[in-house]
């Protein structure tokens, strides 16, 4: 059965949505990696036992750096990129 409001999703459209999904997943996946690392190796987080630690130990904590990179990437790069990808897709339709 075919209705007038049903339209076929072309292979190109599927590829576009896959691209958008992939871009939107990169940031959260990176943040998740950092958080999982923090849970698996909590001793690498000096913020959990800050007494007597130097400033560098408190500033540079690898799991938090990974999570921070993910957050920065998601907000600064991925979000405007998704807007542009959508605009580009709309223009090429």
């Amino acid at each position, binding site marked *: 059965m075919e209705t007038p409001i049903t339209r076929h999703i072309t292979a190109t459209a599927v590829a576009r949505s896959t*691209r958008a999904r*992939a*871009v939107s997943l*990169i*940031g959260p996946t*990176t943040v998740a990696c950092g958080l999982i690392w923090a849970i698996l190796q909590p*001793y690498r987080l000096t913020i959990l036992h800050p007494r007597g630690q130097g400033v*560098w*130990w408190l500033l*540079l904590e*690898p799991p938090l*750096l*990974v999570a*921070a*990179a993910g957050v*920065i*990437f998601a907000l600064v*790069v*991925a979000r*405007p*990129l998704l807007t*542009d*990808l959508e*605009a*580009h897709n709309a223009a090429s339709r």
Partner: protein
Amino acid sequence: MLPHAEMVHWAFAAGILLVGLCLLCEAIVGQEVWRMRPWRKYLWPGIAFGMGVLLWPVMAFFTNSSIHMYAHGSWAEVLMLAGGAELGLVRGRLTSPLWRLTWPLAFAVTGIAFIIHEQNPWFFARSAFLHHLLGWTFLLGAVIPLALAWKPRSAALQTCFALTIVAVSVMLFTDRDVAPIFGHLSPLAGPQHR
């Protein structure tokens, strides 16, 4: 007051991770969409160039031997060269695609410097293992940017390049000053640090 060497590695790992993620995104969406906003095309070449500049203070303050000074100095030079060439290419000031050969050069020089300046065997300690691993990753990985110089639009090669950069950042994040590697820690390496 100076941070430990491992902390410097982690800070650079964060910058390298950002470069890798940007490259991965560019590979996914394509150059046309990536360059829709003017600032974005300068983003990862700019971070790469900036890290090259920051490697100079690393060379100055973390030099415990001549060979370390040569290694850090050569990384600073090739990273600035490759990042600067990429900035010139995206800006349009440089037009020859041969400038893209600065990336395989940077990879090869970095790999050789890593391998040469690590004088201990693979399982001496974690840092020794990572130096060897990073060295060979860069040296063998130089094939990818070399291929990209000839096929710059290849999404597969761009993805491989991005994932190599991400892998390098993961290796740098796992670095510790004195720590075992797969249960091995030479008594000559000193007491475990943390």
